């Protein structure tokens, strides 16, 4: 069979031969062609990369038990046999353990005000002078009460904004009240703060450290790039951010905490201005001792929806940039520098392990409602942070309740939560259900709604889908390469550290 990606119009004579399918009754895999090879993936995320000739033999049923390839296919569940079905049940359960886990990530927007003006602000921040944009303590109490209605053993409360440090008193109340409730509840409770650091001071830092609030900031690259994208009146946003990253990491060390596990994480938001500066950006992170970089693409939400023509790019341009970054990070790893690209690591965890990485965007169904909830400053509840962003754009489609009058049960039973669940089950989506990358991927109905007009979207014209496909093509290209050292680097990235299952700011 010729590749449908090459533009060739040649179809091999055997393509429609009935014998192609005879004997193929036990086969269970999806496939995708990469250059001259074919990636076969099973429901459990196992994969095998074969040549066109091998693929041809497999689908023709000409790979028998005596063939080493046959054993590989059985071991990976791509030929289903009595002996591997029971094992598959256990592994499938592990891979999808999030399904029965209940809502554990709770994003709390303690204020919509922000002291920085970012060209891409997805949250549509309000200026510092705006009134009525902060969460009051009474509302915050309702929020915490609703969070603890979730039966989830793990609860993560993530502070977002605006800039959360603008309303530090409410943040402090939420931490203290949640800890007080947890004396009885005994949950695995975790606090996360996404901050630009500009309003940090020693008093706030001491509180955050004392209560083990994990911190994450934005770092868009070297000073000129960062400051051009994240404008702060009368100061350099980059300088403040960098100073506090160093100070906080020093404080972790001073307190005797394992700095491999306890350190400031940083997020990169890629704009058109970032393209072509991959090496500089990665090196900036290395210079600051940051061990994880998440190279994130823009979403067409918030201010980015207005500035897209100036700061946006095509999926191909973004992935080219991501690949440059990845190449540099791998190069550094090979020289002994410890650094992970978070996006690749998330995919690799799904490809190479059966662990649930807890990332709500890459699962089926997505985590909106059932994995995460977002609470706006006025107590309105949204399916997810993206749903809240859409509300800030004037569309309340993803609003599912109010902490002052609804229970968690009311909120999770909302029609919108159900609709999103249906719209994000990859196994039932055209273009996803037979995609080789289904075991590793996820869709975002909110993104689909914003970019394509409905929850389901269309895969062939969906830019997020395109980015995921290109990224996974590259990862499989590396995994199937002969460079053992590079593969070893990627394998190391799948080791999950026990500090947290969720990196703060993933939904920023």
């Amino acid at each position, binding site marked *: 069979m010729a590749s*449908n990606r090459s533009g060739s119009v040649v179809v091999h004579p055997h393509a429609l031969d009935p014998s192609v399918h005879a004997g193929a*009754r036990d086969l269970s895999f999806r496939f995708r062609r990469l250059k001259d090879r074919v990636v076969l993936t099973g429901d459990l995320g196992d994969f095998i990369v074969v040549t066109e000739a091998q693929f041809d033999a497999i689908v023709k049923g000409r790979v028998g*038990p*005596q063939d080493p390839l046959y054993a590989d296919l059985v071991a990976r569940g791509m030929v289903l046999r009595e002996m591997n*079905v029971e094992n598959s049940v256990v592994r499938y359960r592990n891979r999808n353990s999030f399904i029965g886990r209940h809502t554990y990530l709770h994003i709390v927007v303690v204020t919509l005000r922000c002291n920085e003006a970012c060209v891409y602000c997805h949250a549509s921040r309000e200026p510092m002078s705006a009134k009525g944009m902060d969460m009051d303590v009474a509302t915050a109490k309702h929020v915490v009460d609703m969070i603890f209605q979730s039966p989830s053993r793990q609860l993560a409360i993530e502070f977002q904004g605006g800039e959360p440090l603008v309303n530090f008193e409410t943040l402090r109340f939420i931490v203290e009240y949640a800890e007080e409730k947890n004396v009885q509840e005994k949950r695995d409770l975790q606090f996360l703060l996404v901050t630009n650091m500009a309003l940090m001071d020693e008093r706030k830092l001491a509180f955050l450290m004392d209560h083990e609030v994990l911190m994450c900031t934005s770092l868009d690259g070297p000073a000129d790039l960062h400051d051009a994208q994240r404008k702060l009146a009368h100061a350099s946003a980059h300088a403040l951010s960098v100073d506090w990253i160093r100070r906080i990491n020093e404080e972790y060390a001073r307190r005797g905490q394992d700095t491999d596990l306890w350190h400031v994480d940083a997020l990169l938001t890629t704009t058109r201005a970032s393209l072509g500066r991959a090496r500089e950006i990665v090196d900036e992170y290395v210079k600051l001792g940051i061990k994880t970089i998440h190279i994130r693409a823009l979403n067409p939400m918030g201010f980015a929806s207005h500035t897209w023509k100036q700061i946006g790019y095509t999926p191909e341009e973004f992935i080219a940039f991501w690949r440059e970054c990845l190449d540099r990070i791998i190069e550094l790893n090979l020289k002994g520098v410890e650094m992970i690209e978070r996006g690749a690591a998330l995919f690799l965890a799904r490809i190479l392990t059966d662990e649930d990485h807890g990332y709500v965007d890459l699962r089926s169904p997505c985590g909106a409602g059932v994995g995460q909830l977002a609470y706006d400053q006025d107590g309105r509840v949204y399916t997810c942070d993206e749903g809240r962003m859409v509300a800030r754009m004037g569309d309340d489609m993803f609003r599912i309740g109010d902490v002052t009058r609804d229970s968690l049960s009311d909120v999770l039973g909302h029609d919108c939560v159900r609709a999103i669940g249906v719209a994000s089950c990859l196994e039932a989506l055209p273009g996803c259900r037979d995609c080789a990358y289904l075991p590793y991927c996820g869709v975002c109905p909110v993104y689909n709604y914003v970019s394509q007009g409905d929850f389901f979207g269309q895969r062939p014209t969906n830019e997020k889908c395109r980015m995921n496909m290109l990224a996974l093509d590259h990862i499989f290209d590396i995994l199937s390469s002969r460079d053992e050292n590079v593969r070893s680097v990627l394998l190391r990235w799948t080791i999950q550290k026990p500090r947290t299952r969720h990196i703060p700011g993933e939904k920023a």
Partner: protein
Amino acid sequence: MCVVSSVHTCHEDKSVRLKKKTTSVANQKAVAKKAVAKKAVAKKVVVKKKVLARKMTSSGMPGRQVSSKAALASRVQNWPGMLSSVIVPVDTSVYSLDVVLGAAYVLMGKAYVHLSALETGSVQVMLTGKTELDEQGLRALGGDFANELVNQILRVRLDESGRKLREYIVAKAHFFQQGSGQDVKKLLDATLQEAFDDDPLDIAVPWEEKYGGGKS
């Protein structure tokens, strides 16, 4: 199956188009010489046609139902977007409608896709490039569609081949904590019995028996 011979591009011959344009201009001039009023009317008509043409080109396909080959052919000739279109006739005795729809879906990113039922029961697929394509590009587009049909057949077959076992795995993973080998054996037996009673392609013959000489 020779794909190339079954793909029909819809390019008009350039010289014919130029001739038509020249004739059209000449006719308009003749009309203008005869009566100023008539010229004004003719201009309005031309403008309206151009606007309509632009609308149709920019929005893709108006999507009217076409029930016969002849109707489709005449429709295409009047279609401003036809310069970037290719028609692929699909024999539905070879490719099921699900396969055709699956292939059409995959190509939605590259082309506007319009399916028409023919009186013969087969399907005519018209692909209009989202960007202007030359004849080579159109042939490649048609070829991509033809190859995707084959991919889709394979995907459908693979989906069917392991479906019952996959459904069993998912159901058991979610609803039962412990499993027993007996359950699996029963399911395997039932699967083989039910799924391949009607087996004109000999699919039910175990792989090993057919090619490997004995069951594993």
